[in-house]
């Protein structure tokens, strides 16, 4: 894998989720040289953290790792992880980028991914990559199939005991490592900065009732369901008990004008159904309920997937519940109006409740600072939504995946291919023009 970047690329891809990786691979296969800048310590984005994926139910890791590895081993792709785009300017018809490589405190070229440092580290912290349900160390490799398999040290919680430095067999730990700034130039930019979830939804919607351990987010549920998840099985966070009843609250933040998100988040119906199906395998006796407004199973084979879930006994209730409290046994109490049950408020308790949170634009949507236009929904804007969705209003800047609005993996991968196609055509036209001028 190439850790040391060159200083010129044909294309710079911002974001190393599945959209960024696919765009990079498609561009590299056209003969272009590509740098991928990823803020996180590993590429893979949200997808590598999912359990299994609808509608095929194949394991997310099994289908993400090949793409991650293909990008990592590609001779024309450089992956710059744990790096952020600090600035971008137009220069000579192309772009000049400043990239900040955050300090890992571990030398990427020397680390062999053996985790000796991790075993030696005495500090225990909640592991965000496991939904916060498991612990990790202050120096650690992000997760089993992270790429690169290189450790990083988190500065805030490190006690500077120096154990990691001592055990590292290659002397890769460098407690004094400084962030590095590197400059590179590129002729086209692909923005694939992805999405984030509306994690403040429970507080905004439920107030103090939101603070209870068995009310979890959909991404946390993905971790509970993952075969290599925190408990290796589905347990309730508060007491480690197997839940007897699990409920999903759909449109938690989406399609809600009051919360400023009028749009549909597009993936939550399907992943809630998926999670319910996976739960019915893991907990065959549990009652599973999906509270929904409309079931939007619109993709290829999605409707059939939904009908299967119904046939398997997953209960679908047309309602938008509010979390009102908890029981002494730790169950989450919901209040709702069953739209099909003749109206009237009802209350029900579930051992575990999953919020299908709204999909929001990435924190830093336009990391280029060029002023790329945004859509009314806050995601990056397209100037040709009908014929070429990846085109932004900035020449040479393309976008793909959830950076352009919520979408599932298939639609993300397809759109990333489209972004690569348009960027490739742009690069080819520039070259032809350059040759003509010369």
């Amino acid at each position, binding site marked *: 894998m190439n850790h040391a970047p060159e200083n010129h690329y044909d294309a710079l891809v911002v974001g190393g989720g599945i959209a960024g990786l696919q765009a990079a691979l498609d561009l590299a296969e056209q003969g272009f040289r590509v740098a991928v800048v990823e803020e996180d310590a590993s590429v893979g984005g949200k997808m590598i953290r999912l359990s299994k994926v609808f509608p095929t139910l*194949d*394991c997310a*890791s*099994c289908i993400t*790792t090949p793409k991650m590895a293909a990008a990592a081993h590609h001779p024309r792709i450089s992956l710059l992880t744990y790096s952020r785009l600090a600035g971008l300017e137009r220069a000579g018809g192309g772009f000049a980028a400043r990239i900040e490589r955050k300090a890992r405190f571990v030398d990427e070229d020397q680390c062999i991914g053996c985790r000796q440092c991790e075993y030696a580290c005495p500090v225990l912290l909640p592991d965000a990559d496991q939904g916060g349900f498991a612990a990790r160390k202050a120096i650690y490799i992000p997760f*089993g*199939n992270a790429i690169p398999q290189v450790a990083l040290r988190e500065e805030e919680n490190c006690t500077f005991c120096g154990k990691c430095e001592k055990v590292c067999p290659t002397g890769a730990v460098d407690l004094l490592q400084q962030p590095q700034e590197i400059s590179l130039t590129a002729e086209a930019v692909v923005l694939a900065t992805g999405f984030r979830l509306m994690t403040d939804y429970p507080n905004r919607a439920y107030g103090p009732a939101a603070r209870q351990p068995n009310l979890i987010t959909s991404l946390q549920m993905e971790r509970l369901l*993952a*075969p*290599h998840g925190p408990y*290796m099985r589905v347990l309730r966070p508060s007491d480690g008990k197997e839940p007897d009843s699990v409920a999903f609250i759909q449109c938690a933040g989406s399609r809600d004008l009051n919360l400023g998100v009028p749009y549909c988040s597009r993936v939550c119906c399907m992943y809630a159904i998926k999670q319910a199906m996976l739960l019915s395998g893991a907990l065959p006796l549990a009652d599973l309920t999906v509270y929904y407004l409309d079931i939007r199973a619109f993709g290829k084979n999605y409707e059939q997937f939904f009908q299967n879930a119904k046939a398997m006994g997953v209960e679908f209730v047309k309602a938008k519940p509010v979390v009102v409290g908890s029981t002494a046994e730790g169950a989450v109490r919901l209040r709702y109006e069953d739209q099909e049950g003749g109206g009237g408020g009802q209350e029900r308790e579930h051992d575990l409740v999953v919020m299908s949170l709204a999909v929001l634009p990435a924190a830093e949507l336009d990391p280029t600072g060029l002023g790329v236009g945004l859509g009314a929904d806050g995601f990056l804007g397209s100037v040709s939504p009908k014929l070429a969705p990846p085109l932004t209003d900035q020449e040479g800047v393309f976008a793909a995946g959830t950076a352009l609005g919520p979408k599932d993996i298939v639609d993300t991968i397809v759109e990333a291919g489209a972004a690569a196609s348009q960027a490739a055509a742009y690069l080819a036209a520039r070259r032809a023009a350059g040759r003509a001028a010369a």
Partner: protein
Amino acid sequence: MHATAQQPKVLILASEACAYPGANAVGQAHQAYSDHAYILRAPSPALFPPQFYLDCLDQGFAGIIIMSCGVECPYEGAYQVLAQRVDQAYQLMKTRGLDLRRLRLTAICTVCNRAFLNEVNQMTRLADEIGPARDAETAQAA
């Protein structure tokens, strides 16, 4: 015979796309299993003729686990063929009076750590219990 001098061995034929990386995931998690289980990778275990499994047993392996990708097999249709071949192998084993538990067809994915360990532990336990096929046979023939 020399094979009796050691613990009986188990052979695992793992598909390159799923089960082999799955075994590596078990390694990354440092989850121990018997060191008498040996893993060989193959593009698809459908390439082995039924007789191959019997030859392995004759070589002294006490058990064989075929770890395929199952229905997620990258070669469309190969899993069905594999299942047929394994059936044929069972027929051959029956005619030879071999314990059918010595051969097992499973599907293991890249992160099926628990399933992997279950399969390996069961087979190595069985191997310890009934020993290499060759010895069993020799005993029968004698």
